[in-house]
C-alpha cells in the first residue's frame, strides 16, 4: 500500500509540475486578446474537472470498500479470532499475550491507561502493517491476520511524552 501511495503521489505531483512548467515556458509571448484564450481555457477546465471526477470519484469509492473498522475484515483465515488485550502506558505496552498464530485472525482490543498512544504493528522489514489509536476511556478493536511468521514490533504512533520513541514491544507470530 505504501509503495502504491508513493508512486501515485509522484505521478500526480509530476503532472502538476508539467502543467506549471508548460505554462511558464509559454508565458513570454503575449496574446493581447485574452477573451479567446479564456474561452479555450474554460473549455479545457471543464474537461479537466470531469477527468478528475472520472478518475478520483471511482478511486474514492473503491477505497471505501474495505475499511479497518469493518467487523468482516480478516475473517478469511480459519478458526475463531484470537483476542489480545493491549494497553498503553507511559511508556510501555502491556499485552495479554505476546505470541499469536500465523494465518489466523487476531483481534487486538487496544486502550490506554493514561494518555493517547498509537498501536502500530511493524513487520520484520520495519514496514507498518496495521495501526489504531490507544485512547484512555475507549477500546479500539483492530483486526489483523498475520500471513508471515516472525517477530513483529509494536511501536507507539502517537506522541506521548519524553520516552515516546522507546515505547515498543514485540509480538511473535508462529504456528499455534
Amino acid at each position, binding site marked *: 500500500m505504501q509503495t502504491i501511495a508513493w508512486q501515485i503521489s509522484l505521478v500526480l505531483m509530476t503532472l502538476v509540475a508539467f502543467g506549471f512548467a508548460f505554462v511558464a515556458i*509559454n508565458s513570454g509571448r*503575449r496574446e493581447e486578446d485574452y477573451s479567446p484564450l479564456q474561452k479555450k481555457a474554460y473549455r479545457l477546465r471543464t474537461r479537466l474537472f470531469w477527468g478528475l471526477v472520472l478518475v478520483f470519484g471511482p478511486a474514492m469509492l473503491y477505497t471505501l470498500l474495505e475499511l479497518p473498522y469493518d467487523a468482516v475484515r480478516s475473517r478469511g483465515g480459519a478458526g475463531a479470532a484470537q483476542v489480545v488485550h493491549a494497553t498503553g502506558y507511559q511508556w510501555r505496552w502491556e499485552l495479554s499475550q505476546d505470541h499469536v498464530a500465523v494465518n489466523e485472525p487476531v483481534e487486538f482490543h487496544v486502550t490506554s491507561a493514561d*494518555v493517547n498512544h498509537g498501536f502500530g504493528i511493524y513487520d520484520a522489514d520495519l514496514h507498518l502493517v496495521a495501526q489504531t489509536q490507544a485512547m484512555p476511556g*475507549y477500546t479500539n478493536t483492530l483486526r489483523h491476520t498475520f500471513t508471515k511468521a516472525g517477530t513483529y514490533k509494536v511501536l507507539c504512533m502517537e506522541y506521548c511524552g*519524553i520516552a515516546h520513541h522507546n515505547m515498543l514491544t514485540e509480538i511473535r507470530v508462529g504456528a499455534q
Partner: protein
Amino acid sequence: MATYTYEHIPDQGAKAGVLAYLVTSAAVLLLMMVFGLLMRLEQAQWISIGANRFYELMTLHGAGMVGIAAIAGASVMWHFLRQYVALSSRIFVANLVLFLAGVVMILGSVLLGHFHGAWTFLYPLPGNSMGMWSPGAAALFMGGLLVIGVGFLLLHLDVARAIIARYGNFSRALGWPQLFGHDDGKAPPPTVVASAMVTVVNVIGLVVGASILTMMLVNLYVPGFDIDPLLAKGMIYFFGHIFINATIYMAVIAVYEILPRYTQRPWKSNKVFLASWTASTLMVMFIFPHHLLMDFAFPKWMLIMGHVIGYLNTVPILVVTGYGALMIVYRSGIRWDMASKLLFLSLFGWAAGAMPAFIDGTITVNYVMHNTLWVPGHFHTYLLLGMVTMLFGFMYYLGKPDHEADDHLIDRIAFWLFTSSTLGFTLSFLYSGKESVARRYAAHLPEWVPYDRIASVFAVLVIASSLVFMLRFFARIGLARHDYQRAPVARSAIA
C-alpha cells in the same frame, strides 16, 4: 455570463503594522527553521541534544510555525483588504502585541518550565507529564495559545465588522447573489471573498479552540472536571485544521492581487470562483475527521465524511486557484522577477502538496501511513513550498526598487536553490513515510538514519536560500512603505 476586463489598481506601500508583522514572521520563521534542522540533525545522529531538548524544540517548532504562518497570512490579507474596506490599525497592532505576549508565555513554558507536550496539546498529555513538567508550565503554554487565539479572534471580528459595513452581510461578501442568481459581474473581488471565508471559518475554529483550551486549563487544577478524550481530540483537530489552512487562504490573496498586476489580466470572482470558495468554506470545517481516521471509536459516518471531503477538497485547489494562475500567466508576456516567480511557484507547491495529502486522507492508506513522516511530508510541501513561498513572493514585491529593476544574481540562484532543496526536503519526508518511519521520534532506528541525513542536507540548503530572501527583504524594508509602481508591464506581442 458576465465578461471581465483588467482594471489596474495602483501598487500600495505597506503600513508600518504590516511591516512589523512581516519582520516578526521572518525572524520567527528563521528561528523555527533552525529548530527544525536541529531536530533532523538529532535524528540523523550528527548531533546529540537528547530527547528532552528534542521534544522541547519540537513543541516550539510546531507552535511557532503555526503562529507565524497565521501572522504572515494575516499581514497579506490585511494589506490588500484595506483597499476595499476600512480596517482598524489599532486592532491589527493589538493582535501582534497579543501574539508576542503569547510567544513569551510559550517560550517561558518550554524553556524554563520544560513543557514538551507538542503544539497539539492532546488531552490529557499536558496534565500527565510523569513529572517532566509542572501543571504551571502546561498552563502557561495553553494560556499562551489562548492569548494568541484571542488576538486573532479580535482581528477577525474587526475584519467581519469592516466587511459588513461595506457589503451589508457575509452572503454578499461571499458573492452568493452572483453565485446563486444572475452573475452581473459585480461580485466582490477575490480578496474580499477569501477574507470573508477566512473570517467565517476562523471565528468558529478559534471559539472551539479557545473552548477546549479553557476546559483543559480548568481540568489541570480541578481534575474532577473530567473531559472526554475523544471529544477533546475532535475539538483540537477541528480548530487546528481550520487555523493552519486559513493561513494559506489568507496568503493566497497575494497571488490574486499581484499576478494580475504582472500580467495585466483580470482575476475576477466569477461563478466558478465563488462556488469554489463557498465549497471550501464548508469543506475546511467538515474535513477535520481525516485527522481521526485511526480513532475507530469515532462515529464511522464522520470518518467516511473526512475521507470523501479529502478528495473533494483537491478540486478547488487544482481546478480553480491553481488553474486560474496558469490561465492568466499563459501567453501573458509576464516579466518574471523574484516576486512573480515565487508566487507562481507557491501555487505549484500548494497544488503538488495536496496530492500526497488527499492520498493520506484515504482510510486504507491512513491505516499504514498515519503518523509516519508522510504527514510532515505533505504539509511541508503545501506550507513551505506553498504558503511560505507566497510570503516570500509578497516580501519581494513590497521591496522591489522599481518596476523595471532586475533581480540580483544571488536572488536568482537562491530561487533555484530554494525550489530544488525544498522539493528534496519534502520528498525525503515523503519517502521516509513510505518506509514507515514514525513521526515525532527523538531517536530513530538505525535503518531510518540514512533518510534523516539526506533530509538534513536539504534542510541546510532550504535555510540558506530562505536567509537570502529574508536578508533582501530587510535590506529593502525602507522601500516597502512607499506607494509606487512595482509590477513590471507585461511584454506586448506587437512590440
